[in-house]
């Protein structure tokens, strides 16, 4: 018994955090979906979900309930066990990745020495969910989706990994905590390695199967790709995994390139008033909620709106907590989480923006982009950052070193684009049939 207590004492916080993440993540993913629909509607001159709850605020819950009680269909000749297990793999991999993420200096399940490597390793296993799900469905569309997904993942994981290597090189450590600490006081790595950040942005869109790289589930081509035969709860689990993965890649990018939980301009004392931003932000949202409350058409909608307002007030109070001298120590934790999540949201917002703006790549174009542009450029980027690091050690000042290395990498990028353009210039169908036959 005492042994158990001892165990609990040692692992209490990690356990609580793990439970919080498992509990909150589906909800969070649901609201990311709502946000996506709202952003999409805004960009497409419409309103988006408005029916369930005020401004569709309860839509995710309604959707989740609907999916839970939907009929669960397993295709006739499907490999039932694999079919059943595949979504679980996807979502497990996505959730495991959170265990090493540091959402603020305090909120972290496990501070691992190999943090970033662990996240990359674990989230790379999510692909099995997609492949096996596509294969087990016993449908050609699913299979094609799975095949596309595999090829895409392998290609873009390399680019993403190399982009991360650049950041890790600058930080000199794989631990998520220490990576952020390395950016404290100095500049965020996005300003040192903008090309690395760009590469990771593109590769992470591809890795999470988002448009314009959403070929594995391209609805206009493969119906729904690997998810074609899935329905109901299993489908919801895939969906959850997808959005969870989005949050994971956004968190990685935030940690490595955007200074993690650090406040913008954290080192400039004159801008310390930014510390008031988190509570004021929530206060503003709460105020808007209360302002809209009497304008709702139904009393119950007003109630929900007021409830959301109250929730925001509560959060504002939590954000204001560090200003009470007795709780001043909580500042790093509470505000850190706020800034971290804000950056993650902005990153995800850019995903959505890109999705609603661009058409979809074709498969061979995607592969060409990956192998002819992304991977070579990411290797050059690592090289450039290595040179940067050496130059800094040789007492060069920041700007010349930065301009030299980034400029050089940029030149290579332009060269690669030029090369690719020269190849594209030949019109006609992709490849030659007669050649492939012989």
């Amino acid at each position, binding site marked *: 018994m005492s042994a158990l207590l001892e165990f609990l004492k040692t692992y209490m916080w990690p356990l609580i955090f793990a439970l919080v993440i498992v509990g909150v993540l589906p909800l969070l993913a649901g609201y990311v979906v709502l946000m996506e629909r709202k952003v999409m509607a805004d960009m497409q001159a419409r309103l988006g979900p408005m029916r369930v709850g005020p401004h569709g605020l309860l839509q995710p819950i309604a959707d989740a309930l609907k999916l839970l009680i939907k009929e669960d269909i397993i295709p006739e000749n499907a490999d039932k066990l694999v079919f059943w297990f595949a979504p679980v793999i996807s979502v497990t991999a996505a959730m495991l990745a959170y265990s090493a993420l540091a959402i603020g200096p305090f909120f972290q399940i496990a501070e691992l020495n190999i943090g970033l490597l662990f996240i990359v390793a674990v989230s790379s296993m999510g692909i099995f969910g997609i492949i096996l799900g596509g294969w087990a469905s016993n449908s050609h569309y699913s299979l094609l989706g799975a095949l596309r997904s595999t090829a895409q993942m392998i290609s873009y994981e390399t680019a993403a990994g190399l982009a991360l290597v650049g950041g890790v090189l600058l930080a000199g450590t794989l631990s998520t905590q220490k990576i952020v600490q390395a950016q404290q006081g100095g500049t965020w790595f996005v300003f040192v390695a903008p090309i690395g950040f760009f590469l990771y942005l593109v590769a992470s869109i591809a890795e999470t199967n988002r448009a314009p790289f959403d070929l594995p589930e391209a609805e206009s081509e493969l119906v729904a790709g690997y998810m074609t035969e899935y329905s109901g709860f299993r489908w919801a689990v895939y969906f959850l995994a997808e959005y969870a993965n989005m949050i994971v890649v956004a968190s990685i990018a935030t940690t490595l390139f955007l200074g993690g939980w650090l406040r913008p301009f954290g080192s400039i004392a004159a801008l310390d008033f930014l510390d008031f931003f988190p509570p004021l932000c929530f206060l503003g949202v709460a105020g808007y909620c209360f302002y809209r409350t009497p304008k709702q058409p139904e009393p119950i909608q007003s109630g929900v709106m007021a409830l959301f307002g109250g929730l925001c007030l509560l959060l504002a109070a939590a954000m204001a907590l560090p200003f009470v001298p007795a709780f001043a120590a909580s500042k790093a934790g509470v505000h850190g989480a706020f800034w971290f999540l804000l950056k993650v949201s902005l990153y995800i917002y850019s995903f959505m923006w890109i999705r609603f703006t*661009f058409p*979809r*790549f074709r498969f061979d174009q995607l592969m060409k982009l990956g192998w002819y542009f992304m991977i070579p450029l990411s290797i050059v980027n690592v090289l450039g950052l290595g040179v940067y690091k050496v130059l800094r050690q040789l007492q060069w000042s920041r700007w010349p070193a930065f301009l030299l290395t980034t400029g050089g990498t940029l030149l290579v990028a332009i060269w690669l684009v030029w090369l690719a353009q020269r190849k594209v210039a030949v019109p006609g*169908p992709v490849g030659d049939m007669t050649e*492939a036959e012989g």
Partner: protein
Amino acid sequence: MADTRISGFPGAEQTVLGADEIIINMGPQHPSTHGVLRVKLRLDGERIVDSECIIGYLHRGVEKIAEHRSYQQFGPYVDRMDYVAAVSNGLGYCEAVEKLLGAEAPMRAKVVRTILTELQRISSHLLWLGTHAIDIGALTPLFYCLREREEILKIFEKYCGARLTTHAFRIGGLQYDTYDGFEQEVKRFCLDFVHRVDEYEQLLTENRIWIARTKGVGVLTAADAIDMGATGPVLRGSGVKWDIRKAMPYAAYDKYDFEIPIGKNGDTYDRYVVRMQEMRQSNRICLQAIEDIPAGPIMGKVGKVLKPPVGEVYHSIEAPKGELGYYIVSDGTTQPYRVRIRPPSFINLEALDKMIKGHLVADVVAIIGTLDIVLGEVDR
């Protein structure tokens, strides 16, 4: 050792990779076959080795129905062929019967017909643009297109009470005169629409991904296009300057000044550009026509009971999708002896097999989109 030869399904051949060719049925229930088209694809990996179009899921026997309806009664049926361009269908039918009767619609009716038909062309092209873009993965243009299409449909609704299957015209002229404020509304729409087209083009025309997805995809040479009888933007995209509005003017088209945009390479991108230009030209025609709609009657001299003389007639118009022709044989009774319709979609669709061979699955949806087919018209 067991027999390791691969034998998946009848006719399967081993390909370079040692993998099976797979057959997938795209449609009849597929998000981007624009209705109930079924395309059977034989794939090597993702490359199309062979394809076969299977149509007929929406066959309603429109031509047969015509033989059992009076000339007026058949009017609404043609609306249901190309249901996104009902006004154009109606125009073709009415003019064909008028030709058979030897009657002519008054000038006012002709001008109003021209305006409505050009508006319909714009709305049909808008729907094409939206769905074509969404096929290629650009989600947003669809909603912008539908926003403007809505304006046009509102004008139709105000004019004749229906939005989709309008049955806007009558044999011999129009049933309704224009409503109050028709001119202003059309003019306002047209003046606004120029900027809207710019907006769509801003999203797509110079987008690198869009260009990569459409340039060199589904090339149809001018010779092939003519051989297959392709018409409309599909033909003009291949660089053939053929437009019935210019070649054999009908309605009031000879009065107006407009150009026929043509493409160069005959690929998906060219057809896209041609249609975008056509929208601008249609807009131009509308603006010219709306300036002076001649006064006068809206109905020509045709009797209550139509009994055309014995004979036959072929009349074709430039529908949004190409040449829409009506061949009507009369035996002197109130019902046509035979009606044969030449739908542009059906004939353009024949080019599909040729265009998609050697392409990837993703290109199939792009090419189906660029042909701009409506299954109601293909199957009739």
